[in-house]
Structure formats: C-alpha cells, structure tokens
C-alpha cells in the first residue's frame, strides 16, 4: 500500500470516527424523541453515515460500505417519516454504528467481522416499515433475537471483546423492550454510552500515541496565550535592557528563546501538509476522465508543503473547481488530441512549493488553452469590458477576465463544471484568505493557473502604518510596493483628473485613496468638496502604499510608515462587523490595539464615494488606460542575429513562413511565389543600414504588408515575439528613411521600422499618386488639418507624414485642447484627425462636440486607432466619425484624407461655415 493511500485511509478513519462519535448521541436523541421525529437531526445522522459509506466504497471496504448502506436505508425512511424510531430499531442501529467503529479501527482486517446478521436485521426493519407500531415492536424483537445470537457467534470467532460486552446488555434490553415504557428509555440512554465507552477502549490502545485530536478552539487559545507571552517577553526584554542585573539578563534571554520556540511549536500544531487536499484529486481526475471520456494523468508534486489548517480547508473547494475546469475545458478528448498531434493522454500537473514566504500552487494542463479572441468577444457582449478597452488589453489580461464576476467560461453548462460556481468565486474564495490567483494560457498548448497563498492566517506579516494619529496594519500579502515621493517630484508624480488624484508609476496611472479621508469621512461626500480638500493638502502626499485588491491596484496615501511586524489576527466583536474597511485587529508590541485594514474594502468604500459622479469614476478608468495608448503592438524580429527590429503590427497583414527556394529573382527584384501569384520581397539590408543575414536558412519568415493595394513581403528571418511595448521612442539616434527611431525592448536596442518609408526609398513611383495630388490641390491655400493625439510619438509621426504630403497640420495633445483650438476661431479647419483614447476629452467626446455644433456639423472626422475593430467603428459612427484609420498605416490614412478633402470641396464648405458664423449661429 502506497503512502498516498495510507494517508487517505488515515484521514478516512479519523473523519469517520468523528462522525460516529456524534452518531451515537444523535441516535439516542432520536430515540428519546420517539414519533416526534426531528428531521434535521435524522438528516445529520444520514449524512454522516452516507459519507462513511461513500468513502468506504471508494476505498474498497466492502463490509463497511454494506453495513453503512443498510443503516442509511433506515435513516432515509426515518427522515421521510415512513418509519417511527423505536428502541429496538435504535438498538440495532447503535449496534451497527458500534460495529462500524470497530471495523474502522481494525481496517487491515475487516474480513474477520461478520456484518451479515446486522445487515439482515437492518434490512428487515427497513422492509417492515409499513407495520404498525406494535407490530414493529414485535418484529423489532425478532430482529433483536436474530442479531443477538449471531453476534455471539461472531464473538466466538473473533478476539474482539467489545461485541461480547455489548451482547449481554443487548439481551437484557431485548427482554425489557417489548413493552416500551418510559423508565426503559432513560435506562438505554445510560447504558449505551457505557457500552460505547467499553467498545472503544481496546482499540484506542493500539493507536493512542499516533494522534490526539485537539479541538481547534484549544489551539486558538494556545495561540492567543503564546501571543500574549511574546508581548510580555518583549516588555521584559525592554525592562531588562534598561537594568544592569546580569542574572536577570540571562534569565530574560532564556525566556526569549523558549517563548519563540513555543510560539513556533504552537503554530506548527495548526500546520497540515497540503497533500491531504492534493491526494484526493487523483481520484477526481480519474473519475472525471471516465465520465468525460478523456484520458488524463495527474502529477502531484510538493505534497509535503505545510500550510495552516484554515487555509487547507479554504482551498479545497477552489482547487477542486480548478482541476475540474482543467478536465472539462482544458484537456481535449483523445481523438481531438491525436488530431492535434498531441499524445492521447492529457496531463495535469499539480504542484505546491514555497516561495518568498508564501505557498504557490500551480495547476498546469496541456489541453486546448483559452482562446483570447473568443473570450474578448464574449466579454464585450456581456458588457464586462468595452470594445475600446478590449482593444487595449493584452491577451494575458483578456484571459484573466475569466475571473471576472458574471463570466462563465463554459460555452455550455456541463455536469462537471459550470454549475454556477464561476472562476470569480474561486478568486474571491482565495482572496478571502489573503491569497491571489493568476492564469496564463496559450491556445493549443495549455493553461496554467497559479494560486498564491499565505502560510498561515493566524500570524501574518504586516506593515504598520499611521494615519489620523492611529496605527493600522496592512497585511504584506496585499502590498505590492511602497512609494515615497520627494517633495520636488510631487507635481510630476501626482496628477489630478477631475478631482481624482492619480499616481504616475512606471507609465501607469494608479488611483490614489487617502486613508485619512476613508477613515474620517463616514458619509458620502461630494466630489468637489473632496477634491478641494485634497488639493489643499496635496503637499502631504508622501508615503504611498501600493496595494493589490480584487478591483485592481490603487495607492493608499498614509501619513507615515512604521515597522513590519508579525501580527496575530484577532477578530472584531459583533458590534463592528459592518466596518468593511477593517478585517480584524491585532495587538502591537506595546500592548495597544491596531486595526487591520481590509484593502478591497477600502477600495469599495472609496468607489462608493465616487458613485454619485459615475463619470468621474469613468474618467479615472479611462485615465488609467491612457498610458496604454502609448503602448503599441509590435512584431519583433532579427535580421542579423545581433540586430533587433520592430514593426508595427497594425501594418502587418500576416506573417508567413516560407521556404527559401520559393524565392525567385527577376530583374534584380526578389519575388516570392505564393498562392499562385508572386509578390515582391524586400530585405532590410538592401534598404537601410542593416547587417545581412549571416546564414541562408531553408525557411524564413516574411511579414506581409499592403501598400496602396498591393501586397509586399518584408523578410523577417528570425521572429522573436509580438509584444505590447511602451512607445518610448528615441527619434534621434538611428533615424534614417525607413527607420522612425529606436526603443529598448528586453534590453536590446530595437529599431522601429517605417515600412512605407522603406518601400518608398526603393520604389518611389509606388507612392507618387497620393502625394502629388494633395500638393497640387491647393498650393496657395493649403488644406488645414487638426490633429488630436496624446502620444508624442504618434503625434510627431502622423503630423510628419501629413505635412510631407502637403497638408497644413495643427496638433493638439488631447480632445479638450483640440476643441479649444477649434472654437478659438484662429484656424479654419478642413478636416479633423483624432486619436480615440486621450485624457480629458477622448476622440468620441470630441466628435460628439463637433457634431453638436452647427458650425462644424459638416466637418469630416477621421478617427485614429491602433487596431480598428467593428465595435469601435460602430461607436464612432454613432458619434459622427466619418472614417477609421490605423495610426501607422500612413498610406491608407493619406488616401482617406484626400478622399474627404476632395469630396467636401473645402472652399464651398468654408463659405458655408462663414455664412453660419455671420448668421450668428
């Protein structure tokens, strides 16, 4: 028998014994209630016996299973009030429960026990249920005789004395029972516990030194006292360090050491190896495999990792759900797997390990993975995210949406998962115990879910902070970092967005919550009032604790930071349960109580205050995505292995892997034979200052780009990655025609290519049409374009190529500035080109304003975006955007500009505009 099995069995024995110890008293109560059946109580016994039956069946303990089954039948009838419990019936049931106990404690040899008589007796009771009470008494007596006899024989066969002790009493009882009178009932009650006591004595001897079951409340009390001892020790150490008595000194250091060890040992009593949860999954996977017709193997690693009992209990359900999910949605059927070229048998690995004072649990499967495109579409339909947001999100973030409330990943509800217990419940259950959960998935390769848990809930490392002259504890698990802002950086780091404070942190904008406001402002206060006081006290912002909560990260502004301490968590009394910003209390080294802050609660509280002005809250959110406007999806590749290049994904139609023998050279131009046509192929080294490929591989990648309706290929020999990168572009160092600048990606200087510039360099004639016409159109009165774009880089780029095409371009850093320029009347614009995500006023808002103003109602608007999506387009159309173009696709944008400026003959329009102005509109 493997250790694993032994562990399960040990657990089964402990658990079943616990059940049975209650069953005895419960049965006696049922008996004393007589025909006044307490259904709840019977149900309780039923469940206890049922779970023993289930576990025994699983472990192949046939006899226990059978006996429990017969017992269960009777209980079932009782709870349906089909059977009135009489003393005889209860007798037989008690005997059965005794025998169950005996067998449980001699699991190695359950065969020696004879259960058939009891089973017969029990079944007879079950069958005679319809008989009237009197008849039942008689038959009950008969049963009793039956049972009494054979068990005596059992006794002869087995060395167990327990049965022997039970029997004489049983027989006595059987005699008194036919006329059940009141006095007999208490007699039974007195005797039965005795027999039970006798019953257990011989068995407990055999395993007394192994385990002692101690109630958790005793352990909690010990923990409490140990915590107190630590406190007293600290005070003594402090007092001793001030005195000069050397004898006291050594005594104190002894006390110190013992106390620490004691505390540790008591902590240890609460620790259990995570294997107790893990081992059951082997069976879960096996059973699910059979049910779903899937083959899967579960690998378990790190069973020995120990965590607090409370945590073990709390993670069991979430882990089960995750494993079920892996089986149900992750692992494919063997046929599908084989078709995909994977081994027919799937693989799930479950791994626990310690990392940085926390426990990590990894559930990794090699199944189908999560398709971000599907998820994205679903999230938009369910209105969890807007199309705008979806566009800005990385695939990883999209996959993380499965933890969003109201998101069921299953396309159809199945029996296995999708029972309404979504991944959001998994997440909230894990967060409840101070843990976190993350997911990473690759389509076709598999999914990895990582659960991070604290080691213990009883003692948690926390940061002590001060605010409003009180000290508070923040659990370290909630803290992602501490930020201290120098006075001179305040203006730079703290931004105000319509009264909400935001912290600029490595390119992200985090909402700030001032703890003293949260703590003192009980009621909802108006946003203006709040913002004003915030602005006034702006200079105070110094220490910011960046915390992670379910809703995301935010910065908590505190007055000062104290030490980090290991705190013992104490619950708050019942009068304080409604303080959602607090999760408990602790006692600090000096004996004072400090409250523990609940960071998700504070997040909710702060949002509540903003609820009155939903738009404020929205703009805050928009604001936090603003920085993502600066990120851009690029294709990273190398030509010569030491030279890195990036190409905007927005211009790449697709990437193909080709064999080099598909390339043909015609008249000095390389052509790629491809899908029946040939497409011109360009190599970097022929166009810009780049080293050629150092070898000639059999296969290379080609990025396919469309230029004025024709497809061309750019050789990108070695693909590295597709990444969302911050557009922090150095537009000086490497700039040449075809290279817009450089940026550092993964520590490599990477040149960002302008594919149109490159092609134009070698094939200028491909571009003449768009250019010359624009210039010719209006030499003396150039077309004026208003460009609203918040990213410096893109603004320069777009403005650059529009000016190059002969347009007069006025640029604005956001929608609000653009609007001001428009309404100032300083310029007369023919066309507006606007980015969508911008701070203060976004492109949609700007378009709405323009359309709502009669003077500009005919103004063509082209919206720019990193990646155009249909949802975007619809929203844009609704607010009056005329066209959508991709930022880096300069040819299409120029063509579009040309189209709008031609169709709307601008001289006409300008006249019209003037008329309107003179008319005083």
């Amino acid at each position, binding site marked *: 028998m493997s250790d694993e099995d032994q562990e399960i069995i040990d657990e089964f024995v402990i658990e079943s014994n616990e059940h049975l110890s209650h069953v005895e008293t419960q049965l006696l109560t049922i008996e004393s209630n007589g025909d006044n059946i307490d259904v709840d109580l019977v149900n309780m016994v039923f469940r206890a016996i049922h779970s023993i039956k289930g576990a025994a069946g699983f472990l192949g303990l046939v006899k226990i299973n059978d006996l429990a089954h017969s017992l269960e039948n009777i209980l079932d009838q009782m709870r349906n009030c089909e059977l009135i419990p009489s003393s005889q019936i209860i007798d037989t049931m008690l005997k059965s429960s005794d025998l169950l106990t005996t067998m449980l404690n001699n699991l190695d040899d359950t065969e020696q026990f004879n259960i058939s008589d009891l089973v017969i007796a029990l079944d007879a009771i079950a069958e005679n249920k319809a008989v009237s009470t009197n008849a039942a008494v008689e038959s009950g007596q008969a049963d009793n005789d039956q049972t009494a006899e054979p068990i005596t024989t059992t006794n002869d066969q087995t060395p167990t004395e327990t049965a022997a002790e039970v029997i004489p009493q049983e027989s006595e009882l059987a005699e008194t029972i036919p006329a059940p009178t009141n006095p007999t009932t208490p007699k039974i009650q007195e005797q039965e516990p005795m027999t039970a006591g006798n019953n257990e004595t011989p068995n407990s001897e055999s395993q007394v030194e192994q385990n002692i079951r101690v109630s958790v409340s005793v352990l909690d009390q010990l923990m409490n006292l140990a915590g*107190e001892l630590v406190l007293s020790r600290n005070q003594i150490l402090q007092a001793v360090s001030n005195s000069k008595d050397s004898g006291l000194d050594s005594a104190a250091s002894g006390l110190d050491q013992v106390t620490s060890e004691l505390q540790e040992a008591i902590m240890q009593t609460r620790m259990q190896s995570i294997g107790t949860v893990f081992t059951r999954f082997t069976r879960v996977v096996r059973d699910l495999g059979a049910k779903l017709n899937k083959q899967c193997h579960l690998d378990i690693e790190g069973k020995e990792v120990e965590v607090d009992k409370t945590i073990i209990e709390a993670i069991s359900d979430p882990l089960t759900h995750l494993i079920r999910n892996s089986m149900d949605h992750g692992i494919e059927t063997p046929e599908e797997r084989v078709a995909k070229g994977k081994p027919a048998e799937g693989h799930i690995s479950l791994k626990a390990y310690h990392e940085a004072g926390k426990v990590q649990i990894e559930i990794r499967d090699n199944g189908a993975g999560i398709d971000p495109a599907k998820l994205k579409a679903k999230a938009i339909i369910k209105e969890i995210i807007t199309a705008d947001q979806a566009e800005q999100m990385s695939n990883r973030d999209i996959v993380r949406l499965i933890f969003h409330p109201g998101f069921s990943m299953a396309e159809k509800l199945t029996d296995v998962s999708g029972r309404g217990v979504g991944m959001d419940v998994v997440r909230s259950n894990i967060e409840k115990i101070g843990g976190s959960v993350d997911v990473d998935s690759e389509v076709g390769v598999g999914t990895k879910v990582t659960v991070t848990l604290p080691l213990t809930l009883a003692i948690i490392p926390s940061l002590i902070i001060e605010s409003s002259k*009180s000290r508070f504890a923040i659990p370290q698990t909630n803290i992602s970092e501490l930020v201290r802002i120098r006075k001179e950086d305040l203006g730079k780091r703290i931004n105000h967005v319509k009264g909400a404070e935001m912290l600029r942190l490595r390119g992200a904008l985090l909402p700030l919550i001032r703890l003293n406001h949260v*703590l003192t402002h009980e009621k909802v206060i108006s946003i203006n009032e709040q913002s004003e006081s915030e602005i006034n006290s702006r200079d105070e912002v110094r220490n910011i604790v960046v915390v992670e909560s379910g809703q995301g990260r935010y910065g908590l502004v505190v007055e000062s930071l104290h030490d980090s301490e290991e705190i013992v968590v104490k619950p*708050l009394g*019942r*009068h304080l349960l*409604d303080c959602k910003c607090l999760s408990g209390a602790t*006692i600090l080294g000096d004996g004072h109580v*400090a*409250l523990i802050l609940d960071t998700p609660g504070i997040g909710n509280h702060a949002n509540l205050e903003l609820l009155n002005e939903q738009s404020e809250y929205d703009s805050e959110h928009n604001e936090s995505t603003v920085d993502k406007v600066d990120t851009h999806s690029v294709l990273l590749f190398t030509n010569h292995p030491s030279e890195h290049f990036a190409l905007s994904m927005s211009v790449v139609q697709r990437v193909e892997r080709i064999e080099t023998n598909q390339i043909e050279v015609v008249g000095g131009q390389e052509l790629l034979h491809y899908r029946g046509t040939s497409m011109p192929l360009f190599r970097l080294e022929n166009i810009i200052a780049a080293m050629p490929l150092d070898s000639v591989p059999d296969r290379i990648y080609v990025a396919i780009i469309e230029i004025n309706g024709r497809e061309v290929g750019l050789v990108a020999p070695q693909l590295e990655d597709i990444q969302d990168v911050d557009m922090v572009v150095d537009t000086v160092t490497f700039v040449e025609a075809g290279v817009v600048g450089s940026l550092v990606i993964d520590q490599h200087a990477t040149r960002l290519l302008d594919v149109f510039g490159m092609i134009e360099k070698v094939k200028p004639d491909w571009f003449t049409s768009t250019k010359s016409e624009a210039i010719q159109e209006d030499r003396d009165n150039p077309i004026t374009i208003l460009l609203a774009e918040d990213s410096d880089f893109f603004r320069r780029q777009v403005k650059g190529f529009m000016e190059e095409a002969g347009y007069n371009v006025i640029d604005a850093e956001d929608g609000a500035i653009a609007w001001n320029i428009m309404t100032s009347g300083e310029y007369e614009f023919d066309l507006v080109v606007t980015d969508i995500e911008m701070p203060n006023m976004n492109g949609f808002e700007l378009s709405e304003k323009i359309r709502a103003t009669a003077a500009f109602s005919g103004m063509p608007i082209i919206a720019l975006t990193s990646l155009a999506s249909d949802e975007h387009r619809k929203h844009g159309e609704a607010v009056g955007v005329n066209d959508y173009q991709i930022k880096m696709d300069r040819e299409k944008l120029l063509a579009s500009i040309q189209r709008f400026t031609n169709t709307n003959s601008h001289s006409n329009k300008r006249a019209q505009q003037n008329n309107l102005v003179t008319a005083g509109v």
Partner: protein
Amino acid sequence: MSNESTKKSTNSLQLATFYLNDLLLGIRIENVQEINRQLDCTIVPHAPDYVQGVVNLRGDVVTVLNPKVILELDNTDIHKGSRNLIINSEGELIGLCVDRVSDILTIPKDQINEPPANLKGIDGRFFKGIHQLESEVLVLLNIDEIICSTTAEFA
C-alpha cells in the same frame, strides 16, 4: 440570561452599581467579568457612534460601548473616575464605559419594582426594575437589551 432563570432559589440579587452622569444604575454581578480602568481605546473608524473603541484585554480585543449614547444621555468625556465594566455577553467580552463605580449591593427581589415606561426620558425597555435606596433611586439595567439591541439595530 440563563443565570437569571436558574437562580430562582435565592431571594435577593447582587448588583454591581455605577453611575452614568448622576444616574445610579445596577447590573447583576454575575454578568460582570471584571472592572478595570482600561479606557485608552483604539478608535474604530466607521464604527457606530455608541462604540467607544477597542481595548486589549490580556490578548483579547474587546469592544467598548458607550452606554450614554445608547441611552441617549448627555455624553461627557472620560475622566479619572471612569471605569471599564467588562460584561460577558453570549461568550463575547464587551466593555461598558461608566462614570464611577459604586458599591455592590444585595437587594431582596421583592423590593424591586416594575420599571416605569419611561425614566428621565430613557426608553423603559432598557430597564428591568427600580429600587428605592435611602437617598436615591437605583435602576436595574437590562444589559442584554443594551448590548443586543445595538447589534440588532446595526445588523
């Protein structure tokens, strides 16, 4: 609560008496776990106004209530004579901040009269009875009502 029903054998009650402003109140001594001077409370943000704060009672975090707020009496600051009356209520220790602790009195049950529906403007439901002393009236406080009604109201 269970104490009250089982202690029928004795004919008198032992009361711990104390003042809230100048009102003399008593609660059964069985309900009182201890009396201390620990009133250096940690203020709990967002707590209901009748919660004075929490204190450390040998390792337990105990909620301290301000009965004056509950009884809608004039609220005064904590002073030198203030004491923390620790009550054991349904297994939880709860502190009551009182102005001055007076004697422990043994009062025959038959000398306790039904409380009036309203006493000095305080709702009668908070009282169990009154007893006339030589110079003043002792009011028997319904401690369960004080502690539980607040939670019920709050929940």
